[in-house]
């Protein structure tokens, strides 16, 4: 139901004054706390982001990102602890290889690279979190609504 709404939103995007919708996967220990810090510090950033908390960036399966795009997200952002700072020692390092290949593959099949983004944000970087969100939202806004992987539930 929710995804159907998302689709119809994408389809009528231009005329309704479309706003990009970004799904952000944030790790529990750094990036989620970083986003929290941006909030308590009252740093302004665009409201286009929907945050999903995951235990670690190593928990990210590329299927999550594809599913988000399939169900109407215009962009996905994954953020974890900086290399070396992972709560689980090396979750983000193992994930980094997976991320590099995911990004490369998406580009290869013709999906705009800006739709799938990866970054590191620590618990003390509220400002950085806001800046990243601003940048991602701006880039996706320029691209327009995601049409490539979106699943149509009409039929």
């Amino acid at each position, binding site marked *: 139901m929710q995804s159907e709404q998302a689709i119809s939103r994408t389809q009528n995007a231009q005329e309704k004054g479309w706003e990009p919708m970004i799904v952000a996967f944030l790790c529990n220990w750094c990036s989620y706390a970083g986003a929290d810090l941006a909030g308590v510090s009252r740093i302004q950033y665009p409201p286009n982001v929907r945050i999903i908390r995951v235990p670690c960036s190593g928990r990210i399966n*590329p*299927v999550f990102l*594809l*599913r988000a795009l*399939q169900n109407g997200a215009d962009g996905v*952002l994954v953020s974890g602890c900086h*290399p*070396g700072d992972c709560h689980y020692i*090396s979750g983000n*390092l*193992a994930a*980094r*290889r*997976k*991320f*590099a*290949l*995911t*990004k*490369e*593959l*998406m*580009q*290869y*099949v*013709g*999906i*705009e690279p800006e739709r799938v*983004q*990866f*970054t*590191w944000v620590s618990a003390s970087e509220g400002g*950085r979190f806001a*800046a*990243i969100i*601003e*940048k*991602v939202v701006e880039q996706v806004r320029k691209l327009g609504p995601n049409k*490539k*992987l*979106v*699943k*149509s539930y009409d039929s």
Partner: protein
Amino acid sequence: MIASHEIEARLRETAGNLLREKKVSLFLGHEKASLPFRTTPLFLTRIEEAERLAWNPFCAANLSVYLPRLFKAPADAREAKAAPRPPIVGLVLKGCDARSVAVLLQERQVQRENLVLVGIACPGMVDRRKAERALGGHEALGAGEDDEKNIRAVVEDGTEITLLRKDVVADACLECRSPAPSMHDILLGAPVEGNSSGLSRQRTAEFETKPLDARWAGFQGIVSRCIRCNACREACPMCYCKTCLFDQNRPRWIGAGTDISDVAIYHLVRALHMSGRCTECGACERACPMGIDVRLLGRKMCAEVEDLYEYRPGEAADAKPALSSFSMDDPQDFMTEP
């Protein structure tokens, strides 16, 4: 150069000896099929049937796909108690098959002591679709190999047509960089030179230089023909998960039908799951009933893993797989900075 029929004779002898001396309880090889340009897998347990083994230009199948099933781990302790001892399996290996076995060993799907590997340096196997196309309107009744290693086919009116081997060899074989098995207990036939044509990269580069939307259109061209029969998955020696993500119901990650978006995700996820594990044997391509270039994404991932992490799957059974290891200074220039 040793002719295929000589290797075949030696193979039969070797397999017979292994069975006679009880060094293996099962021998996996190829058998002549009823249709030309094909062979079927043979599970050999009786010495007197060793004559059924074949070695010809049509032995393309990657037999290592059967190994995880033969050595399936018991589900629980009770089952483990009742389980028979795992067999000792002999199998025929080409270069690509040996790479697949190496990856299965790395991933602990098989034990080295349960395998007797009979390696044969592979001269490149025939793609039956290419061969059928090369015959034009003719229908082959039988096919074999001549002294120059070219393919000879007898067609419906009894005439013989010779097809140049290089014209009908499978794409995966043209791209193959190490046709000789890297790992073997017994080696039959003369070693074959490695190929450094870089054809795989050429094909990837050709696709990659197209503009974004053309690449998407190309990808959609593949996806729109896919019927989601999962043959590419079943044929792949690296696809042995107990419950595949695509079959999982709770949660159902990806729709099972032929919705174009689901099919696209199927191919993307398969490429990602195979990256750092694909040994480029071409089994998926051979299995595809729609003749789709299913290795389009796989070729790219192989090149990418090699460039970024200097790793080629299946080169050594004791290497650490690229995606289960990491380094502090892995490239991360793709990361977003504010």
